[in-house]
């Protein structure tokens, strides 16, 4: 099996501060990391390789610092990594990004060998769109399945994918080639291995493709290929909390105290009455 696994290099925290003047992320002092939700995808790819043999190729579209993330994945056991990087890819939304990724997968398929599966994480911690897997599948016209927990090969051309939903576990037969997005809690990633890190340094299994290699129409990539417009960002103001702790005797006492306390507050009492009316209560 030849499996491509997607990786995004993201600021290593969910609490990145936003500059109140410019509305942009303050990245200073925030080291980047591999998007944590990509880790189950990498682990799934490596487990499939462990079971069925083949090759795992990590793929990212990013400026060159993402090489450090690709190195990490090679440390985990990924065979080689491809960085797709060019100025004309900068400023891309998910549509333009998935376009480049789909074209890169096609290029891998043509030049390196037939791709059976591409696996992505559920979403990224810095934008949380969960678009990339679905959009890449659309560009390639491959079947797509998400929230995957496990994958089994059932014959040469078909996998059985188990997805775990809130109230159901579903098994799907999916024809290959296909795109899968893993559930963010599907699998625990393996640690980096010393021998793989040595391999990274000795063999340098890393390829960089610029647009000279990709030969994509720049109107379809980067900012130009991105129809998404960020109209406005609003910084949600922090609500000052009252920080009151009440230890009730029982449930009735708790309810009474809560209603009494809320009714004493002008804003809260209005909201409470409105909510009760809308809810049909008297």
């Amino acid at each position, binding site marked *: 099996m030849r499996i491509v696994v997607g990786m995004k290099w993201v600021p290593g925290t969910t609490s990145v501060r936003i500059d109140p003047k410019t509305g942009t992320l303050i990245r200073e*002092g925030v080291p980047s990391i591999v998007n944590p939700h990509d880790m189950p995808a990498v682990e799934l790819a490596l487990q499939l*390789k462990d079971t069925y043999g083949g090759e795992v190729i990590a793929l990212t579209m990013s400026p060159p610092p993402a090489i450090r993330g690709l190195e990490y994945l090679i*440390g985990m056991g990924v065979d080689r990594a491809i960085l797709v990087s060019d100025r004309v890819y900068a400023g891309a939304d998910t549509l333009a990004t998935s376009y480049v990724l789909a074209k890169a997968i096609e290029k891998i398929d043509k030049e390196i060998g037939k791709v059976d599966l591409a696996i992505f994480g559920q979403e990224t911690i810095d934008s949380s769109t969960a678009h990339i897997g679905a959009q890449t599948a659309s560009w390639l016209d491959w079947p797509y399945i998400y929230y995957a927990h496990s994958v089994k090969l059932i014959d040469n051309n078909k996998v059985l994918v188990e997805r775990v939903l809130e109230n159901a576990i579903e098994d799907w037969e999916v024809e290959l080639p296909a795109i899968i997005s893993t559930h963010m809690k599907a699998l625990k990633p393996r640690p*980096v*291995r*010393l*021998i793989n890190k*040595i391999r990274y*340094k*000795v063999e340098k299994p890393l390829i960089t493709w610029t647009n000279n290699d990709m030969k994509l129409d720049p109107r379809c990539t980067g900012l130009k290929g991105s129809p998404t417009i960020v109209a406005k960002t609003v910084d949600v103001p922090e609500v000052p909390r009252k920080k009151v702790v009440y230890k009730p005797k029982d449930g009735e006492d708790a309810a009474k105290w809560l209603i009494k306390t809320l009714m004493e507050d002008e804003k809260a009492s209005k909201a409470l009455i409105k909510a009760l009316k809308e809810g049909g209560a008297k």
Partner: protein
Amino acid sequence: MNNLPDLPTKFDVIVIGAGPSGSAAAYLLAKKGFKVLLIERGRGLGDKNLYGGRVYAPPIREVWPELDKEAPIQRWVTKERISMVQGEKVITFEYKAEKKISFVSYLTQLSQWMSKKAEDAGALFVTEVTIDEIVMKDGKAVGVRSGPDFIEADVVIDAEGVNRLLLERLGIVERLKPDNIALGVKEVLKTGASNIESSFNVGPNEGVAWVIMGDVTKGIPGGGFIYTNKDSISMGLVLHLKHSMNFIENGKFDEHVSKLVEEFRFHPYFRPYWKDAIISEYGAHLTIEGATHFMPSKFAYPGLLIVGDAAGLLLSTGYTFRGVDYAVYSGKLAAEAVEYARNNGGFTYENLETYDKNIRRSFMYNELFKHRGAELLMNNPVMMAKYPSILMRVMEKMFEGEYTQETIYNALMQALKEEKVGPFDLISQAFGMVKSL
């Protein structure tokens, strides 16, 4: 792919830890043609600026003569200050130095520069890998194990730093005791280069190293520090852990340590230096005090050399701290011993032992024992409180008389009386103090 037949699994030397000591050893050995594997547990990059401080250049220049030109130096220390604080009263000494022998640097940046040097010289440098064990066979270190991977080497150099998990596991050293540990709390205050240069009155690449004693620690042995980076000021406190615990147990101290730093930051004498600054980073970490107790009984074992902080090579004289240059220098001595062994019949214990001998002969070892008294002194709450207090009273009597002012002699005698110290005690203790410093 799990068995990788073409990959090297045997090196001449494995260095554990890519801090200053490990990078120096790896650099020098790689330059001499040794096959070196340098392993770092961290990410090996300079994202954080919290860990930093003053670094002494001369021993490092012996390894990297290009240091002054190339290294990520924030500012050269050209001014030394020592202050004693009691409430709002402050006595400050300043010394303007002539030579540039020390500089302020962010440790992650400096380490990164050094490990890059090692890699450029030919060492194989890997990051984000934790070593689980130094593998021993027949009493000799033969390599390292990380998870399922065993990598063999003729010599292992342990540069794992203060937290010596590997040496503990081998039974070479014991776990840290509070007696040997101090807690450092630090804030990085961003204020801009021109602000620093005008408020400290220093040139564009020049800066200040400042030690503060007295009230800032509420009497807990330790002290405050301030030093200047390029466009920010690092300030904070070092508190001896054992004494802090005693203070808490005796009810003499019941505040969070961050509160102490806050009070220091708001002190009216110091505050103007970081007026309008923003706190860009803050944090705490443990450092070693009383390094001579911290040393392993030997610096060389069969197949194994111990360098840098792990070897207890950290000097605290009470007014200066040095560790980075000692680390680099110990790395150099380790590299020389490995080279000596290769040229003299192999990596036998007898040959590697030259490292142990050379450490004990070096300026570092001598210095560490010479200044041991200073540590004892700085660890003595009475000494740390009494003398500043006497001096403060003398100053007060000399300068704060509203109508009359005392002569120095009278001021001193009155101050001694008020502090209940006899003049002869003062002289004998002062003599003892000078001797140990």
